């Protein structure tokens, strides 16, 4: 076989094993050994991913795509789906960062979730999530990917509503689940369409026969898949679940709702790039929706008070960037930003978690301030994350964002301009956040602390398990840009590595090198301008209503509009369906049949008199009739 490439099977298998062990013995392991087991399983997955990566490197550049079949999953007539892994540069890149960032967040969670009564259950879900996500990225067919897709959705639901005895988390989990169903329905339809027209669901076969599809079919398939991606990756109009998902534990927000699961949509788009390259209408749609989401989410993030809500809208906005890159045909740039974003956004979320932890569940930034003296490591790492997401060179975010903006400019200067405005807003709201949390007056002293447990307690730095994750992610956020530096083709390591996957589908950027440098300088200048604006506007100030208009605080009233739509026409339509169609027609038919039988029975029972002579008469009449019939026939 392919020697060490086979190690890939351990990448999803180890988290699955961890999940099973925790399922059987989680309670007995308890706090913190259940956490260490889960962390070990995910770290083992990371090690297996590294081995696979090294094994792929030993093969020639054009021979780095392997299929590893484990068993036949569904042998059903013309549909034959194997449980097999597709191991190529794209899936291995995804597996590396999912397991790597995942392992760090597992480690962090050991400290963060300490003392929670459901500690083992949390890690059980986390390992199940890791397995599902790896099935998603490593699956060799749409159906295996869909298995992982639903798995991560389920884990997301379970983990958002992890504290189900509180009021809001279960509602938020339900909202996430229901919103995602809309997207999943698109994914399903796309699968039906692919199978209906090509008779297979395996990526390699689908792409090999993509030429047989008419342009309309390809457009329909890609648009439906994009609908799935819109749901999972929180794009307009299905992004409303992600801010609510912040009700879950903060490491979950970092792992699922920032670094990994929400990027599944981007991964899916990158995976089907051979189809997208045949559907220019779809890519334009993707680019427009991506940039619109990026811009609108960034405006909302400017006016949020909850430390996690800012990061949630920021995540939506950054995902918009990735879709902009996909729409511009720059899949390598999208994956690059996905990886760097995983580093710095996980870092920011974990930093926020550390702050929340240190302040005893305070999430309102207006009640923070001056924390850098109390939590020096958290503050330092958070600042690194801030500079990275703001796009200040030479941090990781600058390089990936610049790559996207360059490709957007190549597609359309309008997209580039909107992306640049988003970059400015990003730098601004992150500076606002950093300033409100770590600088300024120590407002947590004067604020009347509503929770009794934290009253009067001073903020404290996080335990070492949390700090290890923070520092590692901070280092990655500084150096992550080195994955793909734009100066010479040789330094574009990631793009070169992914080239066998995207190869012919990548758009060649056709701007001159002078303009390229100009654009990079421009985006750096915009980032610095945003940082300066943010710091200047919030220096010594906490309330600036002019900068936080109600419309932005309420997120453009989108939630209210959706609620009104669902509560008004939606409920009416449901009522019509329930009363008229279901109760009237469908139930009516069933009940009518029952009434008919009952009525016939009531009438027929009179025949049964109980008198022997009646029965005898009946028998006699019957015999006479039969005899008459026989005579008539014979005669």
């Amino acid at each position, binding site marked *: 076989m392919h020697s060490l490439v086979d190690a890939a099977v351990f990448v999803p298998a180890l988290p699955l094993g961890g999940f099973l062990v925790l399922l059987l013995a989680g309670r007995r392991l308890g706090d913190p050994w259940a956490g260490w087991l889960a962390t070990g399983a995910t770290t083992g997955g990371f090690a297996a991913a590294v081995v696979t990566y090294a094994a792929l490197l030993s093969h020639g550049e054009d021979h780095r795509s392997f299929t590893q079949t484990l068993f036949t999953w569904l042998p059903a007539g013309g549909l034959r789906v194997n449980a097999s892994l597709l191991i190529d540069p794209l899936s291995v890149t995804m597996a590396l960062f999912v397991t790597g960032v995942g392992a760090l967040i597992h480690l962090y969670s050991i400290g963060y979730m300490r003392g929670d009564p459901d500690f083992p259950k949390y890690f059980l879900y986390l390992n199940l999530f890791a397995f599902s996500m790896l099935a998603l990225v490593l699956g060799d067919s749409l159906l295996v990917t869909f298995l992982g897709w639903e798995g991560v959705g389920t884990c997301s639901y379970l983990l958002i509503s992890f504290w189900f005895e509180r009021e809001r988390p279960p509602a938020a989990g339900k909202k996430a689940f229901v919103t995602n169903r809309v997207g999943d329905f698109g994914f399903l339809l796309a699968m039906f369409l692919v199978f209906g027209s090509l008779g297979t669901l395996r990526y390699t076969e689908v792409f090999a026969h993509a030429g047989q599809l008419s342009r309309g079919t390809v457009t329909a398939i890609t648009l439906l898949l994009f609908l799935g991606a819109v749901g999972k990756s929180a794009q307009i109009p299905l992004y409303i679940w992600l801010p609510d998902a912040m009700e879950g534990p903060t490491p979950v927000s970092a792992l699922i709702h920032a670094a990994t699961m929400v990027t599944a949509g981007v991964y899916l788009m990158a995976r089907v790039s051979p189809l997208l390259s045949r559907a220019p209408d779809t890519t334009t749609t993707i680019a427009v929706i991506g940039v619109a989401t990026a811009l609108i989410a960034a405006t909302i993030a400017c006016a949020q008070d909850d430390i996690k809500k800012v990061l949630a809208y920021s995540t939506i906005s950054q995902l918009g960037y990735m879709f902009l890159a996909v729409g511009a045909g720059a899949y390598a740039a999208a994956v690059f930003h996905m990886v760097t974003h995983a580093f710095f956004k996980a870092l920011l979320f974990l930093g926020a978690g550390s702050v929340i932890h240190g302040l005893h569940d305070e999430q309102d930034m207006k009640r923070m301030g001056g924390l850098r003296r109390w939590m020096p490591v958290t503050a330092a790492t958070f600042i690194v994350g801030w500079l990275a997401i703001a796009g200040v060179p030479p941090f990781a975010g600058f390089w990936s964002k610049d790559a996207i903006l360059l490709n957007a400019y190549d597609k359309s200067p309008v997209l580039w301009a909107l992306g640049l405005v988003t970059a400015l807003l990003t730098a601004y709201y992150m500076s606002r956040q950093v300033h409100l949390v770590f600088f300024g007056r120590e407002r947590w002293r004067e604020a009347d602390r509503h929770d009794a447990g934290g009253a009067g307690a001073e903020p404290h730095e996080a335990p070492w398990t949390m700090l290890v994750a923070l520092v590692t992610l901070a280092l990655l956020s500084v150096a992550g840009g080195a994955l793909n530096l734009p100066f010479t083709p040789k330094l574009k390591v990631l793009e070169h590595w992914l080239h066998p996957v995207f190869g012919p589908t990548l758009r060649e950027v056709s701007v001159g090198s002078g303009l390229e440098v100009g654009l990079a300088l421009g985006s750096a200048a915009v980032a610095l301008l945003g940082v300066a604006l943010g710091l200047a506007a919030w220096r010594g100030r906490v309330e600036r209503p002019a900068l936080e208009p109600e419309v932005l605080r309420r997120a453009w009233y989108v939630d209210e509009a959706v609620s009104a739509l669902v509560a008004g026409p939606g409920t009416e339509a449901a009522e019509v369906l329930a009363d008229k169609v279901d109760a009237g027609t469908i139930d009516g038919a069933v009940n009518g049949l029952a009434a008919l039988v009952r009525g016939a029975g009531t009438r027929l*029972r*009179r*025949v*049964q*008199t*109980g*008198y*022997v*002579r009646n029965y*005898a*008469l009946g028998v*006699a009449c019957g015999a006479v009739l039969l005899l008459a019939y026989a005579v008539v026939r014979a005669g």
Partner: protein
Amino acid sequence: MTVSAGWYLTLSAVLFTIGAVGLLVRRNVLVMFMCVELMLNAANLAFVTFARQLDDIGGQSAVFFVLVVAAAEVVVGLGIIVAIFRRRAGATADDLNLLKG
């Protein structure tokens, strides 16, 4: 003179009719039971007649089956009738309508 098959068949039909009419018009279960026996034996007579006429042993064998069935029927039927007499004063069929639907 020989008695032709027609006579036997006629006798059989008459006996059967008496039995059938008796079953329908009489009220006493014992008499009704006797009527059933009459009908069975009318059928037996027809069987034997045809067996002789057609020189076929099948008809006579059928009679034995009928006799066995009739014997079994007597066992069950008389058992029921005795049970009725033990529970009730008489055995009028029209008083028995417990199985009314």
